[in-house]
C-alpha cells in the first residue's frame, strides 16, 4: 500500500517531538501515512500556512485555535485542536542583572515554588518601571501563564508588567540588548540562553500550572470534519509517538532525532535537558530536576479537554474585554475532544468518560472512569490553589 502523504507544519522546538517521532519511528507508516514535515519560521506564518492549505495540520500553540474562535488574531478560517501534543515544557528565565537582584533580595532559585519566585521578582523589580517580559507569541500558553501568575501575586498588566512578543531565537539577544528583563519560552531556548551566558532560569512553567496544555495538533475545522478518517490516522500516529516519547529509554534517541539539521539542528546535550527534566539553570552549571518538565503521554496528556480550552478562552476574554459566556462557548469548541475520541476509540488508547474536568482540582495522581478502566490523571493544580469550573453544556 502506498502511504498517503500529509503536509504537517512545525516550529523547531523540543515539543515538536511527537510529529518528528511519528514520522521517524514509523508510527505514521503503521497508519499508512507519510508526514512531509515543513519547518516554519514563525507562528503567524505557520498559522497562515494552515489557513491557506499549504499544510493540512500543524504543531500549534494551544491558545491559537481558541483565539481564532474568539475572533482574535488574523485568521480567516476556523481552526480545531484535535490532540494535545505536549503539556508543560516552558521555562521562565531572567537577565543576569535581574538574577543578581533576585539574589540580593534572598531568592534561592529553588526552581519549583512559583509563589516564592514571584514574590522575589516583585521585590527585585525596579519600582518605577514595569517588568518587561518576552513571550514567543501574543496567543501562547507562555503569555497566559505569566498573566495568571503575576496578576495573582498582585502585579497586574499592563501597569506593572509589559508582556511583549520576541521570537524565541532572538530571546537571548533581546535580553543582552536590555529590551527585556525576563522571558517565558519553550525549550530549547531557555537552555540556549543559559549556554550563551545571557541569563538564568527561574522557574519551569509547570510550577504555575501543573498540567498546562502547551502545543496542540491543529487543523482547519472544515478539513478535519471532511477528512475525518485521514485525520484519525494522524491522531493515532501522534498518540503512539507520544507514548514512545514517554518511555525514559526513548529520550536519547528522541534527542538524536530532534538534533538533526532538518529538525532543530542543535546539540543533543542541550535537547536532552528538557526531555529528562534535568535543567542547567545558570552559567555555573547548577542543575534542577523537575519531574514531568514536559509531558507527551502520561495522565491522558493528548486528550483535548474542553475545559482546557474554556480556561484559555476565559483568560483571553478577561484581558480583551469580551463577553465571558460567549467566549467560553466559542472558545471551548476549539478543542475537539469528539474528533480525538472518534480517532482513538477501538485502539489501544484508553479514553476518559468525560470531556471536561474541573481544571486545577487534581492534587495527586487520581484514577478516573475510562473505557478500559486504566486511566489516571496527574496533578493539574494551579500554584495558588484556585480551580476553574467548566461551563455546563453540550
Amino acid at each position: 500500500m502506498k502511504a498517503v502523504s500529509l503536509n504537517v507544519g512545525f516550529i523547531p522546538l523540543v515539543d515538536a517531538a511527537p510529529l518528528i517521532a511519528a514520522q521517524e519511528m514509523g508510527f505514521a507508516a503503521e497508519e499508512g501515512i507519510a508526514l512531509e514535515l515543513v519547518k516554519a519560521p514563525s507562528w503567524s506564518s505557520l498559522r497562515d500556512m494552515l489557513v491557506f492549505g499549504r499544510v493540512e495540520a500543524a504543531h500549534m500553540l494551544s491558545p491559537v485555535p481558541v483565539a481564532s474562535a474568539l475572533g482574535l488574531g488574523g485568521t480567516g478560517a476556523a481552526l480545531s485542536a484535535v490532540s494535545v501534543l505536549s503539556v508543560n515544557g516552558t521555562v521562565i528565565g531572567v537577565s543576569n542583572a535581574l538574577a543578581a537582584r533576585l539574589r540580593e533580595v534572598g531568592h534561592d532559585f529553588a526552581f519549583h515554588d512559583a509563589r516564592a519566585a514571584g514574590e522575589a521578582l516583585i521585590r527585585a523589580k525596579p519600582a518605577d518601571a514595569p517588568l518587561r517580559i518576552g513571550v514567543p507569541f501574543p496567543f501562547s500558553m507562555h503569555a497566559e501563564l505569566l498573566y495568571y501568575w503575576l496578576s495573582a501575586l498582585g502585579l497586574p498588566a499592563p501597569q506593572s508588567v509589559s508582556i511583549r512578543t520576541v521570537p524565541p531565537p532572538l530571546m537571548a539577544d533581546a535580553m543582552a540588548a536590555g529590551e527585556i528583563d525576563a522571558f517565558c519560552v519553550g525549550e530549547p531556548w531557555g537552555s540556549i540562553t543559559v549556554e550563551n551566558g545571557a541569563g538564568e532560569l527561574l522557574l519551569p512553567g509547570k510550577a504555575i500550572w501543573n498540567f498546562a496544555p502547551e502545543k496542540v495538533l491543529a487543523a482547519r475545522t472544515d478539513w478535519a470534519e471532511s477528512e475525518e478518517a485521514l485525520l484519525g490516522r494522524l491522531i493515532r500516529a501522534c498518540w503512539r509517538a507520544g507514548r514512545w516519547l514517554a518511555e525514559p529509554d526513548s529520550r536519547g534517541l528522541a534527542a538524536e532525532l530532534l538534533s538533526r539539521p532538518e529538525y532543530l539542528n542543535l546539540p543533543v546535550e542541550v535537547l536532552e535537558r528538557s526531555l529528562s527534566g534535568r535543567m542547567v539553570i545558570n552559567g555555573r552549571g547548577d542543575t534542577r530536576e523537575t519531574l514531568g518538565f514536559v509531558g507527551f503521554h502520561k495522565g491522558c496528556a493528548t486528550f483535548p479537554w474542553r475545559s482546557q480550552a474554556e480556561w484559555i478562552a476565559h483568560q483571553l476574554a478577561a484581558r480583551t474585554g469580551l463577553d465571558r459566556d460567549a467566549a467560553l462557548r466559542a472558545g471551548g469548541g476549539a478543542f475537539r475532544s469528539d474528533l480525538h475520541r472518534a480517532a482513538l476509540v477501538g485502539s489501544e488508547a484508553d479514553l476518559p468518560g468525560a470531556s471536561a474536568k474541573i481544571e486545577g482540582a487534581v492534587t495527586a495522581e487520581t484514577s478516573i472512569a475510562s473505557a478500559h478502566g486504566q486511566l489516571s490523571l496527574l496533578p493539574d493544580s494551579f500554584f495558588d490553589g484556585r480551580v476553574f469550573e467548566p461551563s455546563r453544556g453540550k
Partner: protein
Amino acid sequence: MSDKLSIIVVEPDRDRAMLIVDSLAEAGDYDIHVIAEVTGLARRVKAHNPDMVLVDIANPSRDMLEELTLASGPLERPVAMFVDQSDDGLTRAAIEAGVSAYVVAGLQPDRVKPVMDAAVARFNMFQRMRNELAATKRALEERKVIDRAKGLLMKARGMGEDEAYALLRKTAMDQNRRVADVAQALVTAAGLLG
C-alpha cells in the same frame, strides 16, 4: 491625514529594502518607510502608524507584528492581516511569494492591490535569487567533496584523476545514487577511519 498610503517595509537587508522601495514607487505615489532593526519592532511600527506593513514571511520577527492585530495593541486603530479581506488568489500569491502584509482594517482593496502586486513581483524575484544562490552553493560544495573523494582514491589506489572520477561515477550508477552522495560517504568514512 494625508491621502497618500503610508507603507512600512520591514527588511534588515539594505539592498533588498531599496529594491522593494523602488518597485513600490513605480506602482504609485506612496509614503514609504523602511525598518531594518528588529528589536522593538512593534514599537517602531507604532511610531509611524502606517496604513500597511510589508514583511518577509521567512523573517521570524513577523510574530512581533501579531501584537498589532490585537485591538488593544500598539496601533490605536485595529489592524487586520491583509489576507482577511482580499481575494484568495492575491493572498495565495502573496504567501507563495513569501510576503505578508498587515493593513489597517477598512482600507479599500483597490488601494491595496497595486502595492501587493508590486511587492509580490519583487518577492518572487527574491525567491528565485534565493533558490539560485542555494543551488550554486550546493553545487560548489558538492564539487569540493567530489575533489576530496577523488584525492582519497588517487592516494589509496594509486590511480589517476580521470580513473578516480570514473570509479566514483560507476559506483554511483551501480548503487543508483548521486556521485556527490557517494563522494560524501567516502569522505566521511575516510574521516572516521583516520
